[in-house]
């Protein structure tokens, strides 16, 4: 079984500093066998709305071998640092939820000041 986690830093931004957002997805194999976590299926909702930008980001690009075959107890992660302006369109409070294989990871919140 794969356990996913989402983190967003910093948690407080302005419109001008949205490009500083670092969004990290982590996946841990809590099972007993090597598995393909199939992270290309992961979805992100921002205030309840699916993000196409994140879907394309997680579903494309070069990854280390663990991304496709994760040993038991091991964790693989990926950080994106160019999604801020596309996920956070205007000032406000945002709740980001990562969904993978029907399970939601712990939501994270980001505040964007004008």
């Amino acid at each position, binding site marked *: 079984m794969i356990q996913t986690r989402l983190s967003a830093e910093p948690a407080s931004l302005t419109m001008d500093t949205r490009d500083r957002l670092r969004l990290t997805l982590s996946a841990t194999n809590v099972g007993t066998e090597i598995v393909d976590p199939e992270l290309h299926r992961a979805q992100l909702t921002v205030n309840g709305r699916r993000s196409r930008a994140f879907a394309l980001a997680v579903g494309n*690009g*070069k990854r*280390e*071998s663990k991304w496709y075959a994760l040993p038991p107890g091991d964790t693989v992660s*990926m950080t*994106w640092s*160019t999604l801020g302006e596309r996920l956070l369109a205007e000032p406000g409070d945002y709740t980001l939820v990562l969904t993978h294989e029907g399970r939601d990871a712990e939501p994270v919140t980001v505040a964007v000041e004008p």
Partner: protein
Amino acid sequence: MHAADVARRRAEEEAVEQRPAEEAGVPPELESVLSLQRAAGNASVVRMLWGGGSAPVREGPATSEADEAVARSLARAVAARNAVKQPDAGAEEPEVETGDFEPLDDEEEGAELEGEQQLAPAGSPALTRWPWGSGSGTKAKTAKPPKAPTMTSKTTFRAPDRSSKARTTIAVGEQVAFKGSKAGTWAADAGLPVTGASGKTFVWTAPDRAASATITLTVGTQTVAKTMTVVEPTSITGSKVGSDLSFPAGDQGAGMRLRFKYSPLNVSFGNIEVKEVSGPATNVTGYYSGLPAADLWHDSGDLFTRIGKDNKDTAIDTASFTGDPPPWTDGGWDWVIPNNFKTITEGGDGKQFTTVTQSFFLEGPPKVGRSKVTKAGVSTAWRSP
């Protein structure tokens, strides 16, 4: 013995007695023997040498006459021994001054022997006179120009097309070991190091960008050079890894995993890294044409990944899209992805060498929702939700 013979012999001995022993043909090493004989008295030896009892018997040290007899006898023995060149079992090894010198390779040893043979060929008068020969018969030493040095090279990596490691076309950042026929100083007009310590080998790394690099070995006044053609990657081909990606039934989507290979294949790009550069979508059509550009932006992660010595990327790429909601209509877009390379010792963002196009296709009725992705010459199968 006849009286006349005795008189002539006596005269000869007297003449010899007036010269130093060495000049008379007595080797210096016999002088100590003669001294001992003189001190101990050698009448019996003299009698033995002269034969019979006719030799004079004297009190005290032996006379010069007896000395001369002993000397002649011992000299004959020494001469006989030297004539057959038998080593003296009890003798110490002669001390030979060799000085410091570097070992020569076979070719150089051959050259040296040839030179020696010119000075003293086997059986020559100079050799047979040794060690008492004056050397006057030695031939004049003829100056012969030294052989020009030669150079070979061997790349660390074998190229994917299995061409020889002695190739002179190499990739940026490739390492090459040069070997000279003789020790000398090394220099390179590009790549690193620029100079090498004096020696027979020189390990060199090609520059970060395409170039013509000349490696030079200097031995004395002679030089030998080798020119290496350094090339950059030019193109990328992809091959699928495993089967197409799976998605939940009912969801739109298609995808694959692929591994890239970098050409040309007659060099090894084992010392470079490559990355895809993020960028916007182009050729946006149909279903996707009304979306904000930010939604279709290609976010590659902009990470460099190492290329293996077989020119294959060490990382596996994923190309996919999924989750677009119905109603589905025809549409799609392209990512024309710039690819940058840099050598493993280089900083910065590298240099763009090619682009790879990734295309996304979505179908409307009648095959509603079918999707496909193509990239670097390979494609997924059409997949229905």
